[in-house]
């Protein structure tokens, strides 16, 4: 029995281990709890009047998304929905971007009886837990009979009533399309992408620097009556966004011409976006879905995916401490209180950054050894003003001072890029000096002990850092590569190639020499040499020498052409011998005549220079003819 128990225990342990190993990473991840808000479109409503309950649940980037939102209304309430849209937000601290994502869920609720009611907390599932938000209270008043938003209308930001015609009914007698065109400016289009309804995105600029405000407006053009059923925001994944409209979609519509037709045009949203990185950044598309009144057909329209070219502000003239993304026009003010403290005490430093643009999420403080700046408490008020986002952000620091005497806190400096002036500017607020009275020795010892107990002892590994270098020492940049590219391989191949060239050249030279030497003893070469001797002798008028040289030339030529050694052959038989070796008969005859002429010249006492020249000429002609005969 005990063996069976042990086996079961081991099996259970193995299963547990497998589960641990196989569990997904997110199961162990330590995500922050979702940030949840619940709101009512209005605190009071009449019986039968619709109002909305909105739940927004945001989690950090990468965390599981909230899901399965639910609302359990009390008895006597009708609930329509939910309508769910996803949201993504990005914030920027010290040039680093952090993102959140989540859901915006809207229910349309209608009360059936008067009274004060508490609506139970909307809830959702997240990371395998059930998360509840907070309850909300609504007062339902008796019906007064005034016109009101009927139940079952669109569920959109701004609550019921946010959209009049054309979203919630057919055109009335005072159809706005009949009022004429009241926009002749930027809303007019030469061509309409759709004859009934289309969505258009417009950016106020196509290029910007990182952190510069770009305003994007989404316009809905329509010529038919529609019920808006779903709205999906443009992702704007590479931008920090700030809304420019408090209740998007509630702006009064105008009419404009598109493709020659009148359209009713409504601003569906307008956002200020601040690019967080460089490149060609896409805004993504806004998507709207509609139901056609009285029909089942559903329409979906998407805006353009705009591309904004984003670059960094210029590096030239960039001040020290500039953080990429700090773009706008800012002022910095600072307050320090109190000015007189005891050593080890703290002062409150409140820094207020105000202006327009991408207000920085963090500022660089003049921290230094002996002055510790604790994490700031931030407050802000940022909202659109006209076409720009402006406001202020305050940073409340507690600053601990470990030094004594007159301690200068330095100054807060905020370098930023002013896109209007296209230059860097630095907002500055001096903090002034503190009067710090020294702490007594026993208090110092107690403070040191307390700090050590709190684990604030200096980091051990960094306790003994070397001293800073006050001046630039000698520095020679590394010499780099020996040679670059193909030259390196040529250099490596050069020694063997040089050896090959030298030895090959030597061998070639030797061959040439040997050939020349061989050619020097050949019959044609000897014939030519003999002819040159004959010419020299003819010039000297030496008939015997001419005859001898011409005879030698003819003999060598015959030998070269036919291999017949003519010296050992009778003149009478010479033509036959030559013919037997394949030479023409005519050449044999010419050779015999030439040799006979040479023989006669040797014993001719009246040989004239003309005769000698003729003989040499005849011999030379024969030698050439024999050479050609051999070649053929």
């Amino acid at each position, binding site marked *: 029995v005990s063996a069976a128990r042990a086996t079961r225990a081991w099996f259970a342990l193995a299963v547990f281990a497998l589960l641990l190993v196989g569990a997904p990473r997110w199961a162990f991840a330590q995500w922050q709890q979702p940030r949840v808000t619940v709101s009512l479109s209005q605190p009071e409503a009449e019986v039968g009047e619709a109002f909305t309950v909105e739940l927004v649940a945001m989690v950090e980037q990468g965390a599981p998304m909230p899901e399965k939102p639910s609302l359990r209304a009390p008895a006597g309430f009708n609930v329509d929905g939910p309508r769910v849209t996803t949201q993504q937000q990005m914030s920027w601290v010290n040039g680093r971007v952090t993102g959140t994502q989540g859901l915006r869920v809207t229910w349309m609720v209608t009360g059936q009886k008067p009274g004060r009611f508490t609506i139970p907390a909307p809830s959702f599932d997240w990371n395998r837990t059930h998360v509840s938000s907070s309850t909300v209270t609504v007062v339902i008043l008796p019906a007064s009979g005034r016109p009101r938003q009927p139940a079952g209308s669109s569920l959109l930001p701004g609550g019921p009533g946010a959209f009049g015609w054309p979203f919630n009914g057919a055109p009335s007698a005072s159809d706005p399309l009949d009022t004429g065109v009241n926009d002749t400016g930027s809303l007019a289009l030469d061509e309409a992408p759709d004859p009934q309804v289309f969505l258009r995105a417009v950016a106020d600029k196509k290029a910007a620097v990182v952190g510069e405000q770009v305003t994007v407006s989404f316009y809905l053009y329509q010529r038919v009556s529609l019920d808006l059923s779903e709205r999906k925001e443009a992702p704007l994944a590479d931008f920090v966004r700030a809304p420019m409209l408090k209740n998007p979609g509630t702006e009064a519509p105008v009419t404009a011409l598109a493709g020659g037709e009148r359209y009713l045009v409504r601003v569906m949203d307008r956002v200020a976006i601040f690019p967080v990185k460089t490149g060609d950044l896409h805004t993504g598309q806004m998507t709207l879905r509609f139901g056609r009144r009285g029909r089942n057909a559903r329409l979906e329209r998407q805006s353009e995916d705009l591309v904004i070219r984003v670059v960094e502000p210029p590096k030239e003239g960039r001040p020290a401490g500039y953080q990429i993304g700090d773009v706008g026009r800012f002022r910095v003010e600072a307050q320090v209180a109190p000015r007189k403290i005891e050593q080890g005490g703290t002062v409150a430093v409140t820094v207020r950054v105000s202006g327009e643009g991408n207000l920085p999420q963090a500022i660089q403080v003049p921290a*230094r050894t002996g002055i510790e700046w604790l994490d700031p408490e931030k407050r802000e008020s940022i909202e659109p003003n006209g076409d720009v986002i402006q406001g202020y952000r305050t940073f409340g620091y507690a600053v601990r001072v470990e030094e004594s005497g007159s301690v200068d806190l330095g100054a807060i400096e905020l370098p930023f890029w002013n896109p209007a002036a296209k230059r860097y500017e630095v907002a500055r607020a001096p903090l002034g000096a503190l009067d710090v009275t020294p702490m007594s020795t026993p208090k110092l010892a107690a403070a040191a002990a307390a700090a050590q107990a709190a684990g604030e002892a200096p980091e051990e590994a960094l306790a003994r850092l070397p001293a800073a270098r006050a001046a630039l020492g000698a520095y020679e940049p590394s010499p780099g590569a020996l*040679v670059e590219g193909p030259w390196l391989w040529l250099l490596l191949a050069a020694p063997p190639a040089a050896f090959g060239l030298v030895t090959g050249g030597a061998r070639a030279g030797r061959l040439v020499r040997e050939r020349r030497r061989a050619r020097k003893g050949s019959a044609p070469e000897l014939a030519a040499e003999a002819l040159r001797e004959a010419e020299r002798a003819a010039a000297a008028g030496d008939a015997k020498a001419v005859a001898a040289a011409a005879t030698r030339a003819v003999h060598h030529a015959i030998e070269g052409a036919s291999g017949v050694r003519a010296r050992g052959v009778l003149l009478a038989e010479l033509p036959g011998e030559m013919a037997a070796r394949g030479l023409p008969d005519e050449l044999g005859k010419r050779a015999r005549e030439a040799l006979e002429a040479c023989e006669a010249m040797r014993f001719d006492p009246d040989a004239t220079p003309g005769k000698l020249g003729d003989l040499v000429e005849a011999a030379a002609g024969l030698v050439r003819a024999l050479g050609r005969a051999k070649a053929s």
Partner: protein
Amino acid sequence: VTSRAAAGIALAVCFALAPAEARAEAPEETFAAAAAALGRGEFNAAIAGLEALSDRGFTHPDASFDRGLAYAMRVRNHAEEPGDLGRAAAAFAEALALRPGDREAEAALDAVRGEVTRRRARKGKEAIDARPTMDRVVVGLLSERGWALAALAASVLASIGLVLRRRPAGAAHVAGSVLVPTAAVALTILAPLTYAARSLRLTTQAGVVVVPEVFLTDEAGVALGGDPLPEAASVEVGERQGARYRVRWGATEGWVPVGSVRVVGR
């Protein structure tokens, strides 16, 4: 009067056309101001100045060293921001790359990495050490210049051997007969190593992780799994695609966000 006016106009034109750099603060002045701030313990001011120098493309081992020191001081004074230890390690690694053998930079880099290990141990995380693969170890034994010179020497020796081998039988002929195959074998090994060292130089850069830790992903952005790259770890940085770098850590390759790695200048 006309010539004076012309001279005045010419001077004004010269001023107007003078390069902006001429009016900007010289790198030496910026460094001196940052070093003075560091000496006073104003590490934030020092960091701002030294980072501005780096942004302007100014490289000097002493500037990198002081930058690392400023980040380390910020950590030591409990004013650190996430990634400061990695940035300190990157700066010290840069100082060493620019001036190999800098004992102080070596010691400071060891101290920073020691602090990272200590912090990981305090959080119950193991010290992760990625060993380079054999090819990187072999190629890293010499610099590219060293491999190229060795290959060139082998090439020259092979040629000398060929010359000696042509001599009549004797000591020179024997020496040539031994030298030729030996140098040829060496050349066939050293030439590819030179090529590999050159390819590494042209296609990769040294980098250091400057976030507390970062997970590698594949090209589609899906996590590869395995241990994350710890802060201050040295990596080999390859191509860049948008906002991501391809990195190699030990034998593991993957993609990380550009902001999580600082490329070390050389």
